[in-house]
């Protein structure tokens, strides 16, 4: 079943030297519970595309539908995780950060607290429920952000390079955790990254975007069983294919 439909979407903005086309004729369908990675060099418009789906921006051409309804703004059917650790509210504990969406929805205190606990447990941070963000490491903060984006039960999880600012070891750990969380919650995930190995590790499908203007150049289905072994030949072969589409040396 198609969950997210991105149909012939274009996005233009006013640059200093006239209008700039960030995206042109982008068409992507994402199935329910599918894990889709958007890969491309910086400036290819992948974050713009994510922001369009999130409803922070509106497409200048085409349309985006989620569960058949046209996206006109942000909504509680989508949860967003950003790259910057600073996305958490510093004045709230981990627990109260996770409760935020439920609070906005008007949930009662007992339900909020119970749900927040459950999602902190899911990202393995229950012991740190009372900690303030600055007391947590970067990886832990991103885990809180994931729990926060999931806690109010959106059907879609949008992630913009959430692990890009982490060290390599922590990133590996986070990727494993994300796969587990996804397997358990069965959300539809749209995940932006410039890291090809990360995309092959995580995704059911990888969409490759090329820049100036951003267009889809490849749609690669990763048919590897999970958990995936990043050192296996088949894994490396997928990486080679995608790097080839990116126009690098493959």
């Amino acid at each position, binding site marked *: 079943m198609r969950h997210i439909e991105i149909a012939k979407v274009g996005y233009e903005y006013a640059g200093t030297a006239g209008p700039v086309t960030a995206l042109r004729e982008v068409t992507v369908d994402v199935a329910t519970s599918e894990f889709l990675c958007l890969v491309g060099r910086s400036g290819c418009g992948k974050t713009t595309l994510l922001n369009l789906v999130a409803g922070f921006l509106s497409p200048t051409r085409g349309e985006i539908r989620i569960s058949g309804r046209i996206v006109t703004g942000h*909504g509680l059917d989508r949860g*967003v995780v*950003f790259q910057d650790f600073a*996305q958490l*509210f510093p004045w709230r504990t981990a627990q109260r950060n996770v409760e935020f969406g439920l609070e*906005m929805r008007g949930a009662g205190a007992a339900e909020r607290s119970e749900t927040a606990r459950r999602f902190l447990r899911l990202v393995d941070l229950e012991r740190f429920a009372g900690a*303030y963000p*600055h007391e947590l490491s970067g990886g832990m903060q991103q885990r809180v952000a994931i729990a926060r984006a999931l806690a109010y039960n959106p059907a879609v999880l949008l992630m913009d390079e959430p692990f890009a600012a982490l060290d390599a070891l922590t990133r590996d750990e986070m990727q494993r955790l994300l796969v587990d969380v996804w397997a358990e919650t069965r959300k539809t995930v749209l995940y932006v990254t410039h890291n090809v190995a990360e995309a092959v590790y995580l995704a059911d499908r990888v969409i490759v975007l090329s820049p100036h203007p951003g267009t889809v150049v490849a749609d690669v289905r990763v048919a590897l069983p999970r958990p995936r072994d990043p050192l296996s030949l088949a894994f490396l072969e997928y990486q080679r294919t995608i790097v080839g589409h990116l126009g690098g040396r493959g």
Partner: protein
Amino acid sequence: MIRPRARRIVGAVVAFGLTALAWEAFARSGSLPPAITPPLEAIAAALAGMIRDGTLFVHVGYTLARIGSGLALAALVGVPLGMLMGRVRSIERFVLPLVSVLSPIPSLAWVPLFILWFGLGNTASVALVFYAALFPLILNTWTGVCAVNRLWIRAAESMGAGSGAIFRHVVLPGALPFVIAGLRQAFARGWIAVVGGEMIAATRWGLGWVIFDSKEFLNTDVMLGSLAVIGLLGLGVERLVFAALERRTVERWGLVRGTSA
């Protein structure tokens, strides 16, 4: 953590001790008439006298009440105004030029006018504190609202927060470090204003009034004693009220690094 702290205290004691010694040497040298350079002993005796008859506490009470009400009024007006400036462009365009011109005028320059407008007494002193405290509060709050991380707002929006909820749950706490900095500055400026204002505008009570009144009888010991009280009180409020407020909020949230002892 104990050692650097102990070292700081030793440093402070040595600095005060040496300054006291220097004063004592100067006071007893006879280079100025002893009546206007009282030794420490006389200053201490004057203070002890004011404590015994209770007048010191009345003076302190009046001064604190004046700065307290002036500051509270300034916060009541300045913080909401700064918030509005940060959120509404047209208000910013209207208020900012006024604030920019009024803010650099020393509050004490208004004393003669305030006396004409409000008469001698509490109102003039409170109005003076209000004037001195208002601008740092407006400007810091405004800066704080403008400096709120856009990402917090985006995150809140994506979780379904409307503009009212964003203001209450994101902008308000996000701007708090600046508001507290504004309160600190407002207190420092208000403290100068209240003592200065009391010298001219107060009629019977207040630390500023005591100093000015003592001039008539050449009571330099009372003057110096009151000055010491003014300094200690200012430091005490700074340490007890503002440092504690920061420890409980912005320091705990990791928004500023701890500076308090």
